[in-house]
């Protein structure tokens, strides 16, 4: 008993210095950060929410420029009354110019910080990220606004799921390249997701516009709840996909052909015509199938031309091929790969009133 008590006191004395106390109300929580390239230097803007007694949130930003992202945090610490901690970081934004130069060095610091969660949202900004970070969007704080905006669009709409974990996993995966959603400032206190930025070695090389995101998500994600329009003659039908599944198949030999089957269960949301009969539903299905196949085909061709692979075809082929040569794949095989897309569309509902 004596031994236990003595060892406890020794442990208490020696170990209480090992953990650093960060009492919640005595630290500044950095919830969002934006990076831009200004005059060949990286300018970081840290967002710290200030909680008001009436539970509303004021947004305070600290800006500093430096060569490394960690250095930037040191500069910011010198401006802040309480220590700035990174544990509750929600979003990281990268300006367009910077993301075209490469953002890997910056992401590396988040990857190494144990207090940063893997569910951190990353996004590219069409323009300067500082402008978005400094905006005011509702009274729950800018960072929470942006992260909720991204999350809800990932869960229920057209944006494919990405976060720090998935971005890095795509990046390190052989035969796959990563992608991030792109934000755009729209009006004074409004932002929107304007597309998907496609990366090659940590640099943005291409962007998929907002109206094509639906097809992109069909290709890269297993579940899409997005909406799209189908034009039949004069009439327009709004289609909501409720379930989608993509399936890849590699041809036997020569192994240079991939069949992608997209199985889509959709519902008809809106139709500008008079009546939806079985005949119309059949037509819409047919047209929708054609649209999906065409759009996806264009997209894969575009990827092949750019030598990027957000779908992960390289990874897929690698997993099916012995002695896979990744260098040869990017140089010769991938541009020549034949991709066949087959959509299997079922419209399950067309409204209550028939």
């Amino acid at each position, binding site marked *: *008993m004596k031994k236990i008590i003595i060892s406890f006191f020794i442990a*208490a004395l020696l*170990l*209480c210095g090992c*953990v650093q*106390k*960060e*009492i*919640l*109300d005595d*630290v500044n*929580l950095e*919830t969002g950060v934006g990076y831009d390239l200004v005059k060949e230097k990286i300018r970081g803007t840290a967002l710290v*929410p200030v*909680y*008001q*007694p009436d*539970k509303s*949130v004021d947004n305070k930003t600290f800006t500093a420029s430096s060569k490394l992202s960690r250095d930037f945090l040191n500069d910011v610490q010198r401006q802040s009354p309480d220590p700035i*901690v990174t*544990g*509750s970081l*929600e979003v990281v934004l990268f300006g367009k110019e910077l993301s075209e130069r490469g953002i890997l060095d910056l992401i590396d610091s988040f990857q190494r910080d144990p*207090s940063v*969660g893997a569910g951190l949202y990353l996004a590219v900004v069409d323009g300067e990220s500082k402008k978005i970070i400094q905006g005011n969007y509702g009274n*729950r*704080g800018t960072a*929470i606004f942006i*992260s909720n905006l991204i999350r809800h669009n990932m869960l229920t709409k057209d944006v494919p799921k990405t976060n720090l974990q998935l971005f890095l996993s795509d990046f390190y995966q052989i035969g796959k390249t990563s992608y991030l959603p792109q934000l755009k400032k729209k009006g004074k206190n409004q932002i929107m997701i304007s597309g998907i930025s496609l990366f090659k070695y940590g640099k943005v090389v291409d962007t998929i516009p907002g109206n094509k995101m639906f097809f992109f998500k069909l290709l890269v994600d297993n579940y899409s709840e997005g909406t799209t329009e189908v034009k039949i003659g004069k009439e327009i039908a709004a289609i909501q996909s409720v379930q989608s599944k993509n399936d890849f198949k590699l041809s036997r030999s020569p192994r240079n052909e991939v069949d992608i089957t997209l199985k889509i269960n959709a519902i008809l949301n809106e139709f500008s015509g008079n009546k939806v009969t079985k005949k119309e539903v059949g037509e819409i299905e047919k047209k929708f199938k054609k649209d999906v196949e065409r759009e996806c085909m264009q997209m894969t061709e575009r990827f092949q031309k750019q030598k990027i692979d957000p779908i992960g075809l390289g990874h897929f082929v690698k997993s099916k091929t012995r002695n896979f040569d990744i260098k040869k794949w990017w140089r010769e095989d991938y541009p020549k790969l034949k991709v066949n897309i087959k959509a299997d569309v079922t419209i399950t509902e067309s409204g209550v009133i028939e």
Partner: protein
Amino acid sequence: MLNWFTKKNTHSDVKGNLDSYLKRSKDYKQVYYENQKTNQRFCFSFLSSLIDESILEDHALPFLLDKPFEKLEDIKKIVSVADVQISNDPSLIEQKLFNGYVLMTMESDKKNFAFIAAQKEIVRSVTQPEVEFSVIGPKEAFVESLMQNVNLIRKRLPIKELIIEEFTVGSLSKTKVVTLHIDGIADPVNVETIKERIKGVQFDAITDSSYIVQMISDNKNTPFPQLLDTERPDRVTAILAEGKIAVLVDGSPHALIAPTTLVEFFSSFEDYFLNWILSSFFRLIRLFAVAFSILITPVYVATLSYHYELIPKDLMSTLITSRREIPLPPILEALFLELTIELLREAGARLPTKVGQTIGIVGGIVIGTASVEAGLTSNVLLIIVALAALASFTTPVYKMGNAIRLLRFPFLLFAELWGLIGIVFCFCILMTHLIRLTSLNRPFLEPLYPPRLADFKDALVRFPFSQQSQRPQILRSPNPVRFTPPEKKKKTDIDE
């Protein structure tokens, strides 16, 4: 005035000594009578506080005065009291006098004397259980009289196998302690152990069964009680049938149950009156409440001091705004509130009922809101501490509830020192301690450890009675089968 009696007696020393002591007490009486027929003189000596004088007047004196008798032996025939003993051993006198017997001596026969039983029974009537109240089920609780308590059990178990053995402990109080077990169902090893332990009790005055608990427990350096105490005769009956042993102490309205396990302290006897689904649900709620009550304040302190990353972002603004004006760090804030609650509880328990209620209200409302308004504690913590206190009251056994009250403080200390790791560390210490505990040499943590799957039928949840055909394994009953379950019938379809 026992001169004529003591003078020629061989044991005159013993008696003279006793006599001189007793004369100093006011309630010691000696009365002389003469038989009307034979003029035989005789004397009654007794302690008036212990005997019922109406027994003497109605059942002994009329016969002794009117009917002729020559020898002491004769009075057995004429007196209408059943318990009359004749003896010539003066060493018995002290014991008998103090047990409420009347000592009768005759002038003609100085060697022998008779003891006539005339005990006064001051018995509180059987009342409702207060500590272990249940809405449904029997409403009888034990009282302070040992014989009355034995009666409550005996009439519920009218079998010859129910063995009731008596011991006397306490060098001054001479307290009667009885053990009850059902022969053939209780493990003889357990019965021997508890008898040995009771015989080994060395103390001067035993006034309650709680003394016995502390003296016969396996481990004395623990906040956890290792013998279950209950005031419900129905509960005692049920555990006797399981093969456990009960201990009753004269003067105590609480019976002890041994051996027991930790989970038993969180089962209320009302669980057996309710449907098994409901009682299982309530048991789980109680276990959750215990964990909640011990851990929630330490987790608050640990999270706010070390692990702000764990706080959901939607909760962040609530926590930060409530702590904005507080000058104290989380640990002092939590200790302040926890101590306030403990003070309220202690004050409420020590004061008379009516004053106690006022204290509860004053404390709860005034101190709580005032300290939040004064900016000493955050209102989030106030809610947490109040909920933890509420949860700690759900423990059905009062003594275990006290242990739970204490556990929170070491956890708080560790949470402050090392955050969540500290809590885990403290939990490990607690589990090590619990695993080492035994009750009557049987593992206290059973059926969790050692794992006994069969005993889970009546542990964290309670299975229906039809599935409890075996007595608990931990008790090693010589006759482990409670009943033979009927063969399962082949189910017939509804339309057959």
